[in-house]
């Protein structure tokens, strides 16, 4: 199963599953031999829900242990070290956000070779293969596509749009750029991409400066801004609000700061992802696999954890939708499992 080629195969996997089976989630019999580690790439607000969800996994599935470890500091080498250290301490099921999508398959292979179960969470490896047992992530391209669609809609279907994003030499960024372009292409020329500004997610001030410069030089031409990284989203919301230009900003993620922006109207919409679902369903799945209760029918299958457009209208209710999706995900995976 491939995820990154831009076709919708990944999406259909989810659709198939949800429509194909009506069986409820598989019930975990014994999680007491599973020690679960959720390892993000580094410190980032996106992963904060994982921390509490790890605890939830532990109590709910009666795991031997569950931990959340962000000391990888956005360096693949350090993350590998963290993983090995965790393994040495007895953790045997890993939900990992790989720092480097092009490298993470090696890490997965190493862990699997040592007999651990591994899930790729929140991001899938680059390329056509996924060496983890499964990948449960936002389809970044689809999310970017949705965000761009939302922006285009907020813009009234025409005008120039700017895309702000992160590290250019990250394959996820390339996917996001592709997603936004796809949405723009669908307008048949009514919406144009004025600029893609990359590499401004490193820190807030760089993002803020880039936004301000952009608005100063091209502000009058811009009708919408879609951001697919955290710091640019915060900066764009703030920059547009203070410049008083009629620009629609669509952000990504649902950090408190962004939700406040939606409520106050500074942000037109945001594309929320499903970190809780990833950690919860991922933990459940890893426990099933780790306790040898189940195996994947197709190892390496990719499932979209869902992305949700949040606007002022549904800002208070989108979480329900997300919870529904989470429950749905368990069903999707149930169809992918063969259990004893």
């Amino acid at each position: 199963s491939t995820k990154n080629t831009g076709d919708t195969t990944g999406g259909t996997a989810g659709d198939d599953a949800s429509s194909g089976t009506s069986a409820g989630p598989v019930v975990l019999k014994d999680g007491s031999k599973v020690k679960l580690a959720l390892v993000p790439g580094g410190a980032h607000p996106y992963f904060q829900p994982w921390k509490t969800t790890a605890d939830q996994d532990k109590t709910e599935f009666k795991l031997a242990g569950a931990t959340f470890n962000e000391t990888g500091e956005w360096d693949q080498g350090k993350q590998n070290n963290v993983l090995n250290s965790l393994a040495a301490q007895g953790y045997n099921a890993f939900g990992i956000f790989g720092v480097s999508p092009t490298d993470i398959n090696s890490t997965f292979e190493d862990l699997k070779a040592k007999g651990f179960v591994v899930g790729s969470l929140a991001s899938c490896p680059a390329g056509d293969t996924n060496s983890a047992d499964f990948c449960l992530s936002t389809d970044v391209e689809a999310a970017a596509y949705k965000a761009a669609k939302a922006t285009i809609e907020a813009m009234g279907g025409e005008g120039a749009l700017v895309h702000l994003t992160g590290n250019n030499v990250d394959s996820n960024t390339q996917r996001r750029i592709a997603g936004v372009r796809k949405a723009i292409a669908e307008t048949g020329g009514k919406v144009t991409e004025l600029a893609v500004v990359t590499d401004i997610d490193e820190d807030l001030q760089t993002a803020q400066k880039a936004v301000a410069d952009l608005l100063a030089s091209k502000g009058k031409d811009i009708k919408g801004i879609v951001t697919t990284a955290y710091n640019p989203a915060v900066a764009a919301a703030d920059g547009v609000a203070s410049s008083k230009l009629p620009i629609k900003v669509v952000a990504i993620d649902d950090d408190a700061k962004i939700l406040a922006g939606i409520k106050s109207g500074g942000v037109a919409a945001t594309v929320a992802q499903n970190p809780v679902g990833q950690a919860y369903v991922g933990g459940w799945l890893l426990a099933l696999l780790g306790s040898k209760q189940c195996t994947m029918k197709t190892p390496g299958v990719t499932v979209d954890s869902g992305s949700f457009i949040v606007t002022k209208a549904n800002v208070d209710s989108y979480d329900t939708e997300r919870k529904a999706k989470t429950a749905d995900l368990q069903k999707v995976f149930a169809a992918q499992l063969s259990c004893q």
Partner: protein
Amino acid sequence: MSAPVSETATQALQEPDAPTEQPRGGRTPWWANQRVCLLILVVALSALFGILRPAFFNQQLVVFPLLRDIAMFTVVGLAQLCVLSIGHMNLAVGRMAAFSMMITGISYDLWHFSLYAGLLVGLVAGAAIGALAGWVIARTGVNSFVVTLALDFLLLGLIPLVYTGLTDNAAFVTKPPGMRELRNYSLADVCIGNVCGSPAVPQLTMFAVIAMVVVGWIYSRTKLGRELLMTGTSVKAAELSGIPTARRVITAHAMSGCLAALAGFMLAVSTGSIKATIGEEFMLPSFLGPILGGTLLAGGFISVWGTLLGTALTTVIRKGLDLLGVGLESLNIYLGLILLVALSTDRIRTVLSDRQGVRKR
């Protein structure tokens, strides 16, 4: 071998009652030797961590990756050591690694080179970019700090342009045969007769051993190494003693670039792919290893063993903290503090040993 100096002159020059001057501080006590102290520290810390967390001695999961890291960062440290030996700095060590790996990546991806041919190309590219830095420094006389900083900026701009231009995923993912094996194989896979090596020692460490032997040999046994150290002690005096200092500056930087490339290769092999961010984390360790090990920032003195031990110390500490489950919110604080303490005790030791050296003349 006789100089044109007559007996009379020789005699006249040998005043019997001239005070014989002693080396500074006299014989230094064993505990004042930085390397010995480092070794003790590394062993003691490993023992401590081992007691606190027996998993510390897990061959496959802890020792193997630990040694792989020590090996790689030792090579990074050696890359810095080469320029420190002439009193320079290379702030672009990481970016030089990224640059040479980019060339290696191209050679794998586009020219389908074999693993070692690609490595060779990378080493040459590293040496070339290092030589370029050295050449600019030698020609303009501008401080190496500035030149390598500017070069770092330049490469920081250049490398992503190339990657985005040549690849889909901003990384070269073609893996030549042998790369995966190199990552995972240990000495247990190397057998002479039926005696095999330890499964805890990665094969990748061989690169570090080779680098240490070569660098150690150069600095302790050859003309080149001596001349580099002399250049580091005093450029003017070296120039006036017939040492081609400009060439030595270029050589030192080329060696640095070449070793940076080797470290980049080791990183690429151990993480999996060749990408633009290789070497981003190299700067700090590149200084820590050599400096902790006694290499002088001012130039003129280096220690290869010290670099290994200094690197081992920092890597062991980080690993130990990892195993103790120290979270990100405290990890850097501890690391920084331990570093300061380690460096200060070093200073205290020197002061003490100097004091002991006081005696009547």
